[in-house]
């Protein structure tokens, strides 16, 4: 893996962290302020900071540090999480997102000075005065308490244990130096300095090995010049877990004191350390039973200032909180929620995935061809069915790989609303439903832009100002509802506001003025609503940075159409407007009903099909001269002859001779499509007609049938809409 690839992982991770932090902060703002939620926010920012440091993004790191410091105090409860603070944190998160983008794209850092000041102020207000934010590279200094080591008790002359052969041990310690005898300082190079070390009983705990530390010291050029054996008891009293030996090392002057003591940085509690030629050996600590970590006799004194004071009972502060920390950690560990495993995952190149989907698509066709070829072959029937089942399984698996929850798109909305609140002064509450609904990744990616347009439009045009709302008897704060659901093979995404609704009189006036529709056209309210999708249409009185340039809605419509989806509007004056995007589950493969009309084979996408039936003569009733209606269990739906609509000139079947397929449409509710026969129901791979030929009204695309022939896929919405004269004026205009 190259460093660039690792960086890429980092940025993906940043996005995940930002989303998690945003979700957490939004939950906090809405009242969920438990430890898990606050901790998840902290962890997300903390994780970005960690990566920023590792990859050398100093600006990002410095910013996250201040952010994290405040979050840390919030987590500890020393800064209360008020609503004001939540909104500050959310704004800070937006800037963090800008920082990440700047780091990723190598662009200029965002101006965060004001925000940093606010964050620091928020922290200072809540935190105790002495807790000021530490600088980024906060070096922890050793507690340089001038606590002198206790004078080694040297009255004990019992060296019974000294006869133990320590040569091997000492050879190991001193490395290349041959001498194992207590040496005098004179034997060493003159400007060196001495380090006195005394590992205590605890030095062997927790997988620690004192020897490795001494070895490292030796690798710096240190020589062991004496070994204090005065505490070594008789063999019968020897407890191999205690630290009896003290070592004096001599280091060359070139080795900085901090470098040498750094080796022992983490184990200071378990070692007695004293620096200086005249410093005494730290006292031995023989513990009775439990290896304890209290009373670390750390004494770092500069070589120039020898200390000969008697030992005060210097107990560094670190020991006391250690025990409570243990208890807290244990409690935290036991109460840690056992969340569902955060699924193992791998990252793969999207191109590879697309190739897989394409291949699966071809396989679906090949399977259909094979089924056709072997039709009637009873011997192969079972295997064919098995193959069909497997093909479907593979296809579904492949599709599910590409599926992602829509929350990745919805999660960007709070930021859009915050920015709109600043630019328009309208505060909007967001409600999100069905954010776990999964969509094809490509659909998701291309959904962001139209959705942003719709939201901006809803806030700018739909939701009234606070004053107007209050005057209309509504709450001052508007509500925007985003929802996603899967319904009959489609994904429905709704953007609903509780604003003033579409001003139809003004829309029509503008449309006529702009020459989009002729004044004499009789338009239904729905038709007028759809006029806002016409290119160049805009009703905004003034052009703002938010919307009003008239390039929004037709782009939205086109984007949605390119995804194989549709957009519809429901609007009620004074109550609000709802935009509904109906999108296909996948872009590549669909289920369809293969029907015959005259000598043509056509495909009706199964997503539209409600049911199919063979009507009796009584079920079909005339309405005027041109239209027939079908009585479906007491309800009448218009019958539309597919042959007639597609301009077939041969002999056409009558309603009571053919098959009627009841379809659901977005534009005109239900309708019954009249076809000659239904021959099959199977999966088909959509091939674009537009790319290979040109767009044809009423045709959504083409596919290859099992026998290799090309069949057209019906665009049910436009077919029905066209037949019923529904919004055809708009369709042509758009």
């Amino acid at each position, binding site marked *: 893996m190259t460093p660039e690839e690792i960086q890429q992982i980092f940025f993906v991770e940043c996005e995940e962290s930002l989303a998690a932090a945003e979700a957490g902060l939004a939950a906090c703002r809405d009242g969920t302020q438990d430890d898990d939620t606050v901790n998840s926010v902290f962890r997300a920012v903390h994780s970005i900071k960690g990566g920023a440091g590792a990859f050398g993004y100093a600006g990002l790191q410095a910013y996250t540090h201040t952010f994290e410091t405040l979050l840390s105090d919030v987590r500890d409860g020393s800064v209360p999480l008020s609503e004001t603070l939540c909104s500050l944190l959310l704004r800070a998160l937006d800037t963090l997102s800008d920082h990440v983008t700047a780091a990723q794209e190598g662009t200029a850092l965002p101006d965060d000075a004001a925000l940093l000041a606010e964050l620091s102020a928020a922290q200072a207000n809540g935190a105790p005065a002495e807790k000021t934010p530490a600088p980024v590279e906060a070096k922890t200094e050793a507690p340089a308490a001038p606590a002198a080591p206790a004078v080694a008790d040297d009255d004990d002359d019992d060296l019974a244990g000294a006869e133990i052969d320590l040569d091997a041990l000492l050879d190991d310690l001193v490395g290349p130096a041959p001498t194992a005898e207590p040496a005098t300082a004179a034997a060493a190079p003159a400007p060196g300095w001495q380090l006195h070390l005394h590992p205590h009983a605890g030095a062997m705990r927790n997988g620690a090995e004192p020897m490795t530390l001494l070895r490292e010291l030796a690798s710096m050029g240190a020589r062991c010049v004496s070994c204090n054996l005065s505490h070594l008891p008789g063999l019968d009293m020897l407890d191999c877990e205690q630290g009896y030996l003290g070592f004096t090392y001599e280091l060359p002057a070139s080795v900085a004191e901090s470098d040498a003591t750094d080796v022992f940085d983490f184990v200071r509690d378990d070692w007695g350390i004293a620096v200086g030629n005249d410093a005494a050996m730290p006292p031995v600590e023989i513990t009775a039973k439990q290896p304890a970590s209290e009373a670390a006799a750390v004494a770092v004194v500069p070589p120039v200032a020898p200390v000969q004071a008697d030992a005060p009972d210097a107990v560094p502060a670190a020991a006391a909180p250690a025990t409570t920390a*243990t208890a807290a950690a244990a409690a935290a560990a036991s109460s840690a929620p056992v969340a569902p495993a955060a699924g193992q995952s791998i990252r793969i190149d999207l191109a590879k995935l697309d190739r897989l989907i394409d291949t699966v698509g071809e396989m679906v066709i090949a399977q259909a061809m094979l089924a056709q070829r072997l039709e009637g072959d009873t011997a192969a029937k079972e295997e064919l069915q098995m193959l069909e089942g497997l093909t479907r399984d593979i296809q579904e698996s492949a599709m599910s790989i590409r599926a992602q929850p829509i929350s990745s798109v919805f999660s960007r909305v709070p930021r859009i609303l915050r920015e709109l609140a600043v630019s328009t002064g309208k505060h909007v509450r967001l409600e999100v439903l069905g954010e776990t609904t999964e969509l094809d990744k490509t659909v998701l990616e291309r959904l962001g832009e139209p959705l942003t347009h719709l939201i901006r439009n809803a806030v700018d045009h739909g939701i009234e100002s606070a004053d107007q709302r209050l005057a209309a008897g509504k709450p001052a704060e508007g509500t925007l509802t985003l929802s996603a659901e899967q319904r009959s093979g489609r994904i429905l995404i709704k953007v609903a506001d509780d604003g003033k609704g579409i001003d139809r009189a003004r829309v029509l006036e503008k449309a006529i003025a702009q020459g989009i529709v002729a004044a004499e056209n009789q338009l239904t309210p729905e038709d007028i609503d759809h006029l806002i999708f016409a290119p160049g249409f805009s009703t905004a009185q003034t052009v703002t940075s938010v919307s009003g340039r008239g390039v929004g809605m037709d782009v939205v419509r086109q984007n949605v159409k390119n995804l194989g989806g549709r957009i519809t509007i429901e609007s009620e004056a004074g109550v609000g407007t709802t935009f509904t995007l109906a999108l296909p589950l996948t872009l590549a493969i669909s289920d369809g009903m293969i029907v015959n009309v005259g000598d043509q084979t056509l495909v009706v996408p199964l997503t539209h099909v409600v049911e199919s039936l063979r009507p009796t003569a009584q079920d079909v009733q005339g309405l005027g001269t041109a239209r027939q209606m079908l009585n479906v269990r007491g309800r009448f739906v218009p019958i539309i002859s597919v042959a007639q609509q597609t301009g077939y000139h041969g002999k056409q079947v009558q309603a009571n001779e053919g098959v009627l397929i009841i379809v659901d449409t977005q534009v005109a509710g239900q309708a019954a499509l009249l076809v000659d026969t239904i021959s099959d129901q199977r999966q088909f791979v959509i091939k674009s007609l537009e790319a290979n030929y040109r767009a044809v009204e009423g045709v959504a695309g083409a596919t290859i049938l099992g026998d290799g022939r090309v069949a057209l896929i019906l665009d049910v919405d436009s077919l029905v809409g066209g037949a019923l004269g529904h919004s055809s004026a708009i369709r042509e205009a758009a």
Partner: protein
Amino acid sequence: MSNALRILTVDDSASMRALLLHALSSRGFDVVQADDGQAALQWLVTNDVDVIITDINMPRLDGFGLIERLRSGERHCDRPILVLSTESSDEKKARARAAGATGWIVKPFDADKLVAAVRRVAH
């Protein structure tokens, strides 16, 4: 069977895992990785390593919890465990010591220093 030191890294950040993998495997260590304390704990039930390097802030089971759980059992009570954290406060270090950590590395880490720290604790 190679006699390279086997190291388990525990970190919930994919980029940090990638960095650790790169730094350690390019210097001849045998590297195994876990996403959080819980995953590490499960893996360690049936596997052995020479050194464990763990992050502190992780979902499910954090670094302190992991160390305490390992120390309380027989199998891993003497295993060298290094804490890898962005924090460098004495309070956190004391807590790590109390939990039973063997050493402490501050993120962002220098690859050579990381290796030195590993060698310092490896038996």
